[in-house]
């Protein structure tokens, strides 16, 4: 057996388990041992399910031994962001509000991972209720970027990105509301995909902004994206916003290449404000894709400048509504001194929620309050329509859009914490995809001179994740710079 099974991708892992080269228990042990050694430096996990994972792995091995097919992810260790509800353990959203919350049900994606034969290793850190871009808003702990422990892993799925970059799981799941998968994927040098809104069921994802949230995978390569997306996507009768569309076999179209494919470069994204090194790496990636036969075309997304404003109106409005249910009555933090119902709400919420969450609740409450709805929320909904129209028009001229994922590489701790507006502006390249509901992924395209990974973002037509995976695969095969293992991984 190989001593470093934890370095394998998901598709390699399951192939080796199926071939009998190794087994699920061995793979799981390899990961648990690795977690033991690197987790003190990375702090990606909020909870590691050692015994449940071992039991699960043994069950998978037994199924294989009995000639059954445990599914396409048989024996593959996975860890998930702690805003996905699981019957096992707790679901905390890295908030004091839910520090003791034990979900009575599994999220649909968790059921799907189980059905696919994956082995759940535990739950991952995040910005409290997925609100943040650096993971510094976790009420529990600080997760570090495996490439540089002085830097943030990005957010809000920082734990999921850091965990994968440190090889503490074969793949992870996060959620993306305005870039919360793609940004940390970019900062931590892994692949991360936000599927089309409606592609993956949101049932069991603790809602931040319901019209923007999507669950998606972090993986080590494009082939894993194909494998995992197929396993978690599809119509869910429990989610009225999940699309009733067939899920393509992404693995079979993945190798079709990009020859003749048109890649759109939005002029609004490639501006002077772009960090020179980020621009350079992204440019090299685009040239590589051109070398594979893709055609680079300039496009325009004229309403881009409004995206952040629209995003922060819609996401905070929806968040203020979604988080209203945390009142200390049926579950969650309840202040011990509440003598009246009013006290119960005020004390529990004020102490249960961190500052960023309170800030967004206040902003969202404000934009929905009497007299402001038309000026903010309704106006934002209209602007959202214009942003979507931008993409619809752009996609008549190209098949995939390529941009940097972030204007910069990973920030240092504390760098953005003082000024919320500056923090919000870091989402400049990622929020549009959520507002338009289109799929996007981030993949590594080299290291900047500070040693930090740079991310290339690919955006696709609605429900055309296949084109993104195909492009990512082609780029990998065209000699994309391999980052090597992260120093902490």
């Amino acid at each position, binding site marked *: 057996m190989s001593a470093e099974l934890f370095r394998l991708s998901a598709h390699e892992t399951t192939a080796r388990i199926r071939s009998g080269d190794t087994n699920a228990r061995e793979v799981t042990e390899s990961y648990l041992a690795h977690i033991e050694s690197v987790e003190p430096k990375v702090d990606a996990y909020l909870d590691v399910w050692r015994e449940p994972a071992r039991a699960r792995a043994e069950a998978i091995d037994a199924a294989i031994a009995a000639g059954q097919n445990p599914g396409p992810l048989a024996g593959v260790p996975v860890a998930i962001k702690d805003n996905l509800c699981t019957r096992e353990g707790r679901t905390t959203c890295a908030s004091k509000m839910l520090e003791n*919350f*034990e979900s*009575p049900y599994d999220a649909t994606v968790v059921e799907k991972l189980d059905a696919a034969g994956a082995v759940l290793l535990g739950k991952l850190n995040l910005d409290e209720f997925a609100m943040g871009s650096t993971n510094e808003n976790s009420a529990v702990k600080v997760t570090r970027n495996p490439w540089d422990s002085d830097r943030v892993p990005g957010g809000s799925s920082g734990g999921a990105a850091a965990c994968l970059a440190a090889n503490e799981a074969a793949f992870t799941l996060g959620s993306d509301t305005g870039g919360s998968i793609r940004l940390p994927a970019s900062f931590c040098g892994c692949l991360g995909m936000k599927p089309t809104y*409606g592609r993956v069921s949101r049932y069991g994802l603790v809602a931040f902004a319901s*019209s923007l949230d999507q669950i998606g995978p972090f993986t080590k390569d494009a082939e894993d994206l194909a494998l995992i997306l197929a396993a978690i996507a599809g119509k869910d*009768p429990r989610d*009225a*916003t999940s*699309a009733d569309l067939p899920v393509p076999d992404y693995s079979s179209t993945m190798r079709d290449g990009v020859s003749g494919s048109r890649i759109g470069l939005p002029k609004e994204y490639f501006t002077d404000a772009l960090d020179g090194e980020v621009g350079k790496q992204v440019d090299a990636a685009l040239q590589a894709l051109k070398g594979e036969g893709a055609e680079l075309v300039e496009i325009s997304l004229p*309403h881009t400048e*409004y995206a*952040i*404003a*629209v995003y*922060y*109106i819609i996401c905070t409005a929806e968040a203020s509504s979604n988080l*209203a249910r945390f009142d*200390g*009555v*049926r*579950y969650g*933090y*309840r202040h011990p001194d*509440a*003598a*009246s*119902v*009013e*006290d119960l*709400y*005020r*004390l529990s*919420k*004020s102490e249960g929620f961190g*500052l960023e969450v*309170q*800030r967004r*609740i*206040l*902003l969202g*409450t*404000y934009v929905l*309050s009497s007299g402001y709805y038309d000026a*903010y929320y309704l*106006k*934002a*909904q*209209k*602007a*959202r*329509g*214009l942003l*979507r129209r931008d993409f619809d028009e752009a996609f008549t001229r190209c098949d995939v859009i390529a941009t940097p994922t972030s204007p910069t590489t990973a920030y240092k701790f504390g760098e953005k914490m003082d000024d*919320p*507006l500056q923090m*919000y502006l870091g989402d400049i390249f990622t929020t549009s995809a959520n*507002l*338009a*509901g289109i799929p996007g992924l981030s993949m590594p395209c080299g290291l900047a001179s500070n040693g930090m990974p740079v991310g290339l973002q690919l955006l696709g037509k*609605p429900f055309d994740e296949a084109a993104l995976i195909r492009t990512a695969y082609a780029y990998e095969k065209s000699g994309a710079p391999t980052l090597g293992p992260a120093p902490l991984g």
Partner: protein
Amino acid sequence: MAKITLEDVDYVAGLAHLTLNPETREAMARDLGSILEYIDQLERLDTSGVEPMMHVLDVTNVYREDTVGESLSQEDAFKNAPKTDGEYFLVPKILDGE
């Protein structure tokens, strides 16, 4: 528009049932003010004649059939309850019109 007063902060905090300490109250007024000032650039955008986009998916009429499924066991229903007598979720006495 923008410019958030402390009274504005108190009003929305009241709506959201949040109690802010004096420093947080000031900081929130400042933060919300600067974010709203940034957001106000939307005023420049002409959206006349544009339909608000409520859903990115062009899907309507998604329903469930009227069938009864399983409810939670009492144990699961109350598992997370901060205060319960095993029959009800308990709260401080609710007063009329509160």
